């Protein structure tokens, strides 16, 4: 079972890789829309990458309004 810290770490690594952002500049409580500079289509892409990485389904409505990595990790943890 992954800890919430491990999930956050994997999300930050994934976001860093796929959106070309320095990993050291990302923090768990960042607003990822602002930090990554992503639009709605890129947010969908991030959702798909997270689902594929963690092998979970994340219905859109469960992540609606979520904008920081930590809360996103909590939503994923609930599905693992």
């Amino acid at each position, binding site marked *: 079972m992954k800890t919430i810290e491990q999930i956050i770490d994997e999300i930050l690594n994934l976001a860093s890789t796929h959106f070309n952002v320095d990993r050291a500049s990302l923090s768990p409580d960042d607003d990822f*829309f602002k930090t990554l500079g*992503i*639009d*709605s*289509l890129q*947010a*969908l*892409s991030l*959702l*798909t*990458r997270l*689902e*594929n990485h963690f092998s979970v*389904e994340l*219905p*859109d*409505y469960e992540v*609606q309004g979520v*904008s920081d990595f930590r809360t996103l990790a909590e939503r994923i943890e609930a599905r693992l």
Partner: protein
Amino acid sequence: MTQSFVGETLSWELNDGCLELALHREPANEIGLQTLAELELFAAAHETLKDQAHALIMYSTVKAGFSAGADLRDLYGQAKEMGFANAAPRVRDFLTRIHAVLNMLDASPLTTIAAVHGVCFGGGFELALVSDLIIADKMARFCFPELRLGLIPGFGGIPRLKRDLGNGIVRDLLLTGRSINANKAQAIGLASQLVGEGDALKVARFTAAQVKKFDRATSTVAKRFLKPIPYAELRQEIETFCELFTQPAVEAGLRKFVESTDAQPYLP
């Protein structure tokens, strides 16, 4: 009839018996009047070229994906200009025309393949649903967000989903408006093949090369058994959509979408 065409929103080409339709309207292949007009040109070309072909591949050259669906900004702008209460005849005309194109594609004697990547939402999803096979890039995402606008899908979505998938997922997709990824799409029988990122068109071409080996007339007869077209429900869908379109919730839903700066504007 020309064997290739390059329009404002799409292009097609007949190459070695495979007809390829490429959607190329930025930013996300939104389907408005221009796309419809060019799809009608394609439908006419298909009637002429079908005897020289064995397969049809539909794909997108746009990074965002296969298609984000109907051009809601255009729809809202036109309906607002004439008043939503008066817009139903124009909406009906649009739907009747696009149903004619999609029904023709659904009944095509060719083996039809949608190579899907990125967003495949609403009307774009409905375009993919007319194909015999959906080959999904692992980053593809499918969604029917229409109920958030106070509408149902209008390009044949519900009748074709009911034809192709089980009740549980059809209701889930429609009644929650959630999007699903390609893994899920394959698990529920929507996508026939799941492929790596950027590989959907390549695999669609491999598939088209395979179906070329079969007798065309036999494949066409097999399709009639495999894929009956729900014409009565499709006609009913147009009526229901037009009835719903004049409801105040639709104007409010479209306005909210068009004016939204939300990062997830497709969500209710």
